């Protein structure tokens, strides 16, 4: 173990941490440009679909980061998203106000975050089971209260960002999106700054790594965990609202379809780091987009094999075959004051 650790440090000294992601990004951009020159419309479609698929995953992963950096395992992201997708849709259907619906979605997620925090901080229950409770309840409650005959009152339209939207390839893909998509990328940057460049972030990470030490230094562990889990929940709620207000525009039973779990994979893949998770989500989104596109073009690779790639990659990453992803140390364990 110590030998492995020391080689790891030498490794890091020789090669900066951003090296691998940077190389991959350059390769990805190069491939995008070449394929754009070969077939502009398909490239735009694939990249657009990549982003649409990635947005809820990014938001879910950010939720996971907020919770887990504070030491709370959240496998209820799936349920938080589903419930928020439902409440956002119903609000939209009743009032016709998209911003209000978005707010309701985020609030729903935050409330479920409060519930999870209560289960794990106050009741000191097993957090994995707490999350499972949220998931099962969300399927039941949304399915029970959803009426098939409700109608949608529209969804968020794309907002082109002035002249930026006219740049070939980049314009339509990046700068002509509906509001939640912009908000998501903004939130990635904000989360990155909050966690790694502010006092609040440092304290929250301390709570996730070593709550006893944090407590000794006067940080309120319980409060930090409550706040962080609720912020996370609100982000998962945004992800759910994205599905009904921006992505699909409709509510369907069980429509999150595992995105909450994939978001967890994205978070681990991104090593509990917002920008890393964003890149991971884009990778997942891309495999999904390409899978749909291949099916569309009738290419004879069984699309299921491409569909497996992100999941298989996640297993490889968490198993430590490619780099090591280390979770916050105090994760999943309730904190007991002495």
């Amino acid at each position, binding site marked *: 173990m110590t030998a492995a650790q020391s080689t790891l440090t030498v490794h890091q000294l020789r090669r900066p941490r951003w090296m691998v992601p940077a190389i991959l990004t350059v390769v990805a951009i190069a491939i995008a440009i070449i394929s754009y020159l070969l077939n502009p419309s398909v490239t735009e479609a694939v990249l657009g679909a990549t982003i649409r698929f990635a947005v809820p995953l990014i938001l879910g992963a950010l939720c996971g980061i907020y919770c887990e950096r504070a030491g709370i*395992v959240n*496998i209820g992201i799936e349920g938080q998203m589903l419930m928020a997708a439902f409440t956002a849709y119903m609000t939209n259907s009743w009032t016709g106000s998209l911003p209000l619906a978005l707010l309701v979605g985020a609030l729903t997620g935050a409330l479920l975050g409060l519930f999870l925090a209560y*289960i794990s901080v106050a*009741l000191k*229950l*097993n*957090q*994995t*089971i*707490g999350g*499972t*409770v949220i998931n*099962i*309840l*969300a*399927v*039941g*409650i949304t*399915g*029970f*209260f959803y009426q098939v005959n409700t109608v949608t009152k529209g969804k968020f339209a794309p907002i082109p960002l002035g002249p930026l939207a006219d740049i070939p390839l980049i314009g339509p893909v990046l700068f002509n999106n509906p509001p939640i998509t912009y908000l998501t990328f903004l939130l990635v940057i904000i989360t990155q700054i909050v966690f790694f460049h502010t006092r609040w972030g440092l304290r929250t990470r301390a709570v996730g790594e070593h709550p006893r030490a944090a407590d000794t230094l006067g940080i309120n562990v319980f409060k930090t965990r409550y706040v962080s889990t609720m912020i996370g929940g609100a982000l998962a709620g945004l992800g759910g609202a994205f599905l009904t207000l921006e992505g699909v525009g409709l509510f369907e*039973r069980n429509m999150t379809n*595992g995105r909450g*779990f*994939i978001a*967890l*994979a994205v978070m*681990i893949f991104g090593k509990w780091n917002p920008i890393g998770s964003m890149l991971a989500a884009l990778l997942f989104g891309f495999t999904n987009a390409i899978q749909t596109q291949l099916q569309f073009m009738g290419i004879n690779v*069984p699309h*299921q*094999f491409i*569909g*497996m790639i992100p*999941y*298989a990659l*996640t*297993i490889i990453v*968490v*198993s*430590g*075959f490619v780099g090591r992803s*280390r*979770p916050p*140390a105090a*994760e*999943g*364990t309730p904190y007991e004051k002495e």
Partner: protein
Amino acid sequence: MEPKTPSQNNWFMIFWRAIRVPFLAILMSLVVGAVILIISGANPITAYVALFKGAFGNANYLKRTLEKTTPLVFSGLAVAFAFKAGLFNIGAQGQLLLGAIVSGFLGFAIKGLPPIIHIPLALIGGCVAGALYGAIPGLLRAYSGAHEVITSIMLNYIAINITDYLSDGPWKDVSGTNVIARLPMIENSAKIPYIGPVPVGFLIAILIAVVVWYILEKTNFGFEINSVGLNSHASRYAGMKTKLLITSAMVVGGLLAGFGGSVETLGVVGRFQPGFNVGIGFDGITVALLGRSSPFGVILSSLLLGALKGGANVMQFDAKVPHEIIDVIQGLMLFFVTADLVVRKFFRLKKDRGLEVHVAAGWGQK
């Protein structure tokens, strides 16, 4: 074991102490379910009466309840066995799918065998598939420290992709006008029969639960599984091969889930069709926790959940209540039974030791 006072020696008291928290949790979830029904404008009494009638009202209803119960026993055991070793087998769903498709394949591809050979052969195929699939998260957990929850959630999705591929590709039913992605019907010789309204699969499930109980309570292997679950460090110092035990707990879990998928395919559905077994693996979590990871508790809680599922359609038809209320009640049950603190506070019960479920926390490589 705690020292026994005279009142605790009474068998009824012992039984009551074992089941009181799940029982009260069920009661509380039915009450909360009733409140939700009232909010949505339905009459909870009509709904629950219709639910009960739909579950046990006549031989046909009873048959359906038992059909719904059978796979739950298996997936509940699959989760419970892993719980005993301190592992959370959320991957029962994927293991079950692979078991279901392999037994479905053996069920239609092999022809001309007598049932006495064909059925066990298909069942064993399904069990092996499930066990191998369960071995993956077990090995990863034991030797690389990757948490079984995240790997087995991923394996669940991979299993969906594998089974989708097989049932739309090499193993697809190409007879006649079929356009749906599914396997052909299994041969008659592979069908698990019924005795009156009782599916033989249900009897097999009970038998397997007894076997699992025997393994856990009366064998060295079971003892070692339990002690790894209670304290893996202490077990390692006591000379147990903890890595091997963790792997084998997941293998047995996978085998049980695969068994359940096979019984479902051979006994109820009659073929493998994607989307037919969705959720059974996840219900296993509720079943295992309600049954406190004890094999007999698993049978009881599967019957309860099976009755809810079996009666749901009649309730929807008679009382005009969407059958999704079942999922709500199930979620509430899971909540109240795990949040036994809430139940205890509400009913002012004291904590009883030795009955808690131990699950490893976090993703950690601990």
